[in-house]
């Protein structure tokens, strides 16, 4: 067991380093060609300048001054926050997906399975159609409404499943009912959307354009809170995988833990969807792949899924920016194109093995 722990530690270190590398690459590459030297200068100039001030080295003080403002703006104020938000969204969806897969005892579940995505879409569409001038929130009216919609759908699932006892099956059925209902509401909204049709549909296709530090800060607390709850219950998630009864016998307060995990998962999903729309496959494929590689024990699975999710989403966003530059592909298309075949491969592997 000792040797396994050690090799796992190296694996995490590797993933973390990869994450930093991916962050660097995603900021360095984009639609506009910016030479690597410019990025290096932008990143290190504060430090080098400060050192130059300290030791009175004029060359060091001037380091990085030649980088044009536009490039600096693009690197630090457009790309960096965008990649950061993408990574957070990747973490959120992967953790939510892993949690739903564990809770529902189904390795093919995804974070949208209880209707959170439908609720978020309805929220966003409603906000776009009403064209409400939310003076306080301004451009954040849509993410806020999407978030509220996502959480609202879980509330609906809860109230629907109250009657028959909140077993997994009941919640799944309620989730299907809520998804279907909200899907119909969404269709109705789209029907009446008229001129806004394009915007609603495009929002749903998913993407990170226009994501800035405010978006980053607005989802960070939800991400932190939700992740904390999920990690807190990682051993219990293992037990739940064996069934409610068995988990009970191993000391898990099944009802309470399930509630907490569902809410945590919904929080993560709603916050991700609110900033980037409906991006599919990440929440399904990343945890599933990490489970295939590292096993189903959640203490290993969850951190691995989080790191891998961040990397996957950042790379998908990078591809969406680069493949058809200066036009942008919706990120949802990229994740589907990558995730779809990969998903088929996973299914095939299951059957063969």
């Amino acid at each position, binding site marked *: *067991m000792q040797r396994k722990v050690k090799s796992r530690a190296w694996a995490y270190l590797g993933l973390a380093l990869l994450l930093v590398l991916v962050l660097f690459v995603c900021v360095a590459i984009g639609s506009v060609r910016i030479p690597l030297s410019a990025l290096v200068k932008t990143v290190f100039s504060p430090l080098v300048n400060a050192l130059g001030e300290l030791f009175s080295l004029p060359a060091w003080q001037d380091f990085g001054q030649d980088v044009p403002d536009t490039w600096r703006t693009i690197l630090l104020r457009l790309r960096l926050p965008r990649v950061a938000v993408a990574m957070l969204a990747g973490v959120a969806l992967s953790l939510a997906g892993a949690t739903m897969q564990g809770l529902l*005892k*189904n*390795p093919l579940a995804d974070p949208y399975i209880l209707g959170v995505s439908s609720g978020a879409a309805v929220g966003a569409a409603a906000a776009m159609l009403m064209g409400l001038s939310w003076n306080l929130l301004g451009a954040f009216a849509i993410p806020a409404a999407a978030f509220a919609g996502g959480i609202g759908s879980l509330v609906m699932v809860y109230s629907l499943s109250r009657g028959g006892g909140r077993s997994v099956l009941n919640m799944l059925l309620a989730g299907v009912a809520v998804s279907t209902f909200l899907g119909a509401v969404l269709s109705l909204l789209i029907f009446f959307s008229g001129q806004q049709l394009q915007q609603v549909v495009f929002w749903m296709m998913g993407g990170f354009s226009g994501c800035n530090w405010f978006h980053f800060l607005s989802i960070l607390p939800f991400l932190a809170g939700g992740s904390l709850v999920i990690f*807190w219950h990682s*051993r*219990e998630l*293992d*037990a739940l*995988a*064996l*069934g409610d*009864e*068995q988990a*009970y*016998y*191993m*000391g*898990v*307060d099944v009802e309470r833990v399930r509630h907490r995990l569902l809410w945590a998962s919904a929080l993560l999903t709603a916050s991700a969807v609110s900033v980037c729309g409906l991006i599919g496959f990440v929440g399904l494929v990343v945890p599933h792949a990490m*489970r*295939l590689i590292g*096993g*189903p*024990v959640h203490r290993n699975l969850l951190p691995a899924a989080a790191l891998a999710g961040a990397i996957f989403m950042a790379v998908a966003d990078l591809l969406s920016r680069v493949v058809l530059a200066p036009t942008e592909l919706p990120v949802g298309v990229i994740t589907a194109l990558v995730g779809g075949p990969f998903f088929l491969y996973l299914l095939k592997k299951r059957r063969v093995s």
Partner: protein
Amino acid sequence: MVLLSLEAVDFSYGNSFRLEDINLGVERGDFIGIIGPNGSGKSTLIKLMAGYLSPDKGTVCLEGQLLAKLERKAVARKVAVVSQGVQTGFAFTVEEMVRLGRLPHLGRWSNEGPGDAAAVGRALAQTRLEAYRSRLFSRLSGGEAQRVLMAQALAQEPEILLLDEPTAYMDMAFQKEMFTLMARLNQEGITVVAVLHDVNMASLYCKELVALRQGRILIKGNPGEVITRENIEAIFGTAVAISPHPVTNRPQVTMLP
């Protein structure tokens, strides 16, 4: 001293099934076998004893305290259950399954320590599963899977072991191993309560038998008291012959054609 007690317990499940007026005291060191025909309520009784089901009337107490009021994890440190037919769609290895048994003893953030590894190793050794460590639980045969669940329960290091038909799906050799194991565990101080379908094995190994029929305890006592022709006929509704076991003298049931 009474570890687990059920007093005047009634339980019903919908309109069809009922357990009525169950009074049972399990003392430390007991080795109780619960026998009875299908549908008599044996599994339900175990679930009530484990606290998974709550009685409609009456009380279930662990060490004098109401089971329903105790913290789940605390109970799991004392009581372990080996139930039937646990399945999972996830690729847990045997070792990972057994390690899950340490859950009641582990803090949220702490890593598993040498004590935990030792408990797991012991459990694997006791169930002769060391060679199975890296095998996938979902690919094991029914009998092998049962042993893994037994190991998982043992890794919990419980004071009381509740088992629901632990030797189903097992061949003779493994059945014997399981019973020998249960007997040895009992000798080491663990209280064992097992639902058993094989009356003869129950008679051979258990110190006490509890016979259920149609949701009521028909009779309880040591095997000599319980396994009589009249009693077996009353419990199972079929005529049998009783003869003493050639080695241990415990009563054995023989079916009459």
